[in-house]
């Protein structure tokens, strides 16, 4: 156990994977010499060589497509896309090929690759750098989508993603990279994909969150606790497949759910949570599932970005609405 921030924990996970398994290779723009724009791959090229940690041309479709070919040939590539917003030029490779080869070949060929992408806003970055469009990947069959909220979860989930026999999109919340530290187990440490975690038990309302919003959900729970409202907080961790049972169990218990996502609202992750909860726990619901999300607008630039990303206040207000306050 060492205290690490998320960037450090991810770096540690990648080092473990590279050391343990010859088939693991990394590729992406600036992942080698500079250690990536967020330094998540810092030192890995030095340690494992330029043929295991590969700097690529600026070509996202090429990165994904080449990694896909490698995976079919038996490697375990970990591709990095510099920001979620730059994955779109590689979207066709992901949707039409990475997520389909197992189905297309009835298991004869498979693509066990991981595509890492920083996501989310909150650092006042330029346009396209604050995307939270994870719902489009969650909507895509054949791909798992993972989004950790804390350093230890990041390590355990990334190693599990690399060992998974199927493709995983791994989303790293930008503003959490260096924001929090916690104890992270050393060496090979795995957390199961597809399993959500109740990170704070409560009885009055369920807050469902993931990625950077997890921290704000926790803060909202703290704030509510001082007013005597007991909020249960669920860390989704995996966005596809969603762990419906954990969500529904909590919803049945509390009768109130606030689904939180930084992504756009329409057909987003929070919509899916709401649909599932009403489907399986309608008669337990004391109030509608509230969605606290990014709006259906482009993420505003630095000067007004704060109005877009769900704030602790907005979460608390939504809880109050579900409580009928």
């Amino acid at each position, binding site marked *: 156990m060492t205290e690490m921030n998320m960037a450090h924990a991810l770096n540690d996970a990648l080092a473990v994977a590279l050391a343990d398994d010859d088939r693991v290779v990394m590729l992406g723009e600036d992942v080698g010499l500079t250690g990536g724009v967020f330094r998540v791959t810092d030192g890995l090229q030095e340690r494992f060589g330029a043929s295991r940690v590969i700097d690529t041309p600026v070509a996202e*479709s090429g990165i994904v*497509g080449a990694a896909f*070919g490698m995976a079919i*040939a038996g490697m375990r590539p970990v591709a990095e896309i510099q920001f979620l917003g730059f994955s779109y030029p590689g979207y066709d490779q992901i949707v039409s*090929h990475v997520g389909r080869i197992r189905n297309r070949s009835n298991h004869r060929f498979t693509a066990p690759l991981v595509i890492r992408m920083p996501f989310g806003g909150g650092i006042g970055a330029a346009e396209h750098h604050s995307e939270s469009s994870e719902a489009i990947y969650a909507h895509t*069959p054949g791909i*798992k989508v993972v989004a950790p909220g804390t350093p230890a979860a990041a390590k355990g989930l990334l190693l599990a993603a690399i060992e998974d026999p199927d493709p995983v999109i791994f989303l790293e919340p930008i503003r959490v990279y260096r924001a929090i530290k916690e104890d992270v187990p050393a060496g090979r440490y795995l957390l199961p994909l597809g399993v959500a975690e109740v990170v704070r038990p409560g009885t009055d309302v369920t807050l469902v969150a993931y990625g950077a919003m997890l921290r704000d959900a926790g803060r909202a729970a703290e704030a509510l606790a001082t007013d005597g409202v007991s909020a249960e907080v669920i860390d989704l961790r995996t966005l596809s*497949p969603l762990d419906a049972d954990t969500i529904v169990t909590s919803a049945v218990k509390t009768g109130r759910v606030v689904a939180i996502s930084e992504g756009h609202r329409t057909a987003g992750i929070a919509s899916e949570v709401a649909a599932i909860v009403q489907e399986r726990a309608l008669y337990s619901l004391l109030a509608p599932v509230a969605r606290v999300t990014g709006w259906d607008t482009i993420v505003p630039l630095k000067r007004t970005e704060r109005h877009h990303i769900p704030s602790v206040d907005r979460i608390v207000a939504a809880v109050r609405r579900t409580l009928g306050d």
Partner: protein
Amino acid sequence: MDPLRILDVDGRLLGPSPLPPEEIRRLFAVLLTVRAYDHKASALQRQGRLATYAQFEGQEAAQVGSAAALRPDDWMVATYRDAAAMWMQGYPWDNLLLGRMGDERGGAPPAGVNVLPPSITVGAHMIHAVGLGWAEQMRGTDRIAITYFGDGATSEGDFHEAMNFAGVYRTPTVFVCQNNGWAISMSRDRQTASETIAQKGIAYGIPGTLVDGNDLLAVFAATRDAVARARRGEGATLIEALTQRMGPHTTADDAGRYREERSLEDWRRRDPLDRVRRHLQASGSWSEDWEHEVVTAAAAEIEAAVGRAEDLAPFGAGAAFDRMFARPTAVLEAQRAELLGEGKAGS
């Protein structure tokens, strides 16, 4: 650039043959076989027994000549129109037919056959061949990867990224463009203002070769050299095989809307089978009986494959859920239960 040509339309060698006579004879049998398949598949489609089918008539030499230069364990990533090349590399007729019947098992050739299911989207698959070859390079094998695509595919951005990666990392990749003159209704000269497709290699530091795609021996020679280069670790090659698709784009297409029938006359004279037949005739190693025998045997083999494919019971209703991941997720299991009527939503 003049295209490489070794066998002229009269079957005369214009230079030394890259293949011994027995091998030419064997490959002529292959040409006959794949043409028999092409005709059979078209016929099946007309009878409603196959879904849309993309004929390759006219392109047999381009596919057979190039695939003949491969080792059985080399990777192949090809398209909907490349059944001949895929079959040569070990992809069974059964699988090719199943694919066209709309059965996912068509995409699963036997173990040891390193041929991916045909690419239906245009352009995206070339970079897969780059990744496959790159992986072999990393593991220290001398396996190479060949990829087939059309003139139209060279307009997609993914062609560019594939060529660029192959150039930068010197991957063992052989790019075979069958320039058959058309991308559905778009003629080659309106697809790109580049004089040839072969010259596009210059943009990536990759040598480009232009060959007569209807000349079995020229295609073989060019591919053999490209494969050897790749196997030696010297990187990728782009081959442009000039050919013509003699049929419509697919069985769903009406070529009369964009192509004058008489524009094909010249191409008919350049038929890829005829010139090899003439060559064999000249050396006395061809007989009508032998050709008949080959075609009959091929027809029987294909017929048997059709039978097996048609007899294969379709997947059950819930099978799609099993094909998504190594093990179905809980979400998929719940959906399967819903489909099969075992689950009740809102319960």
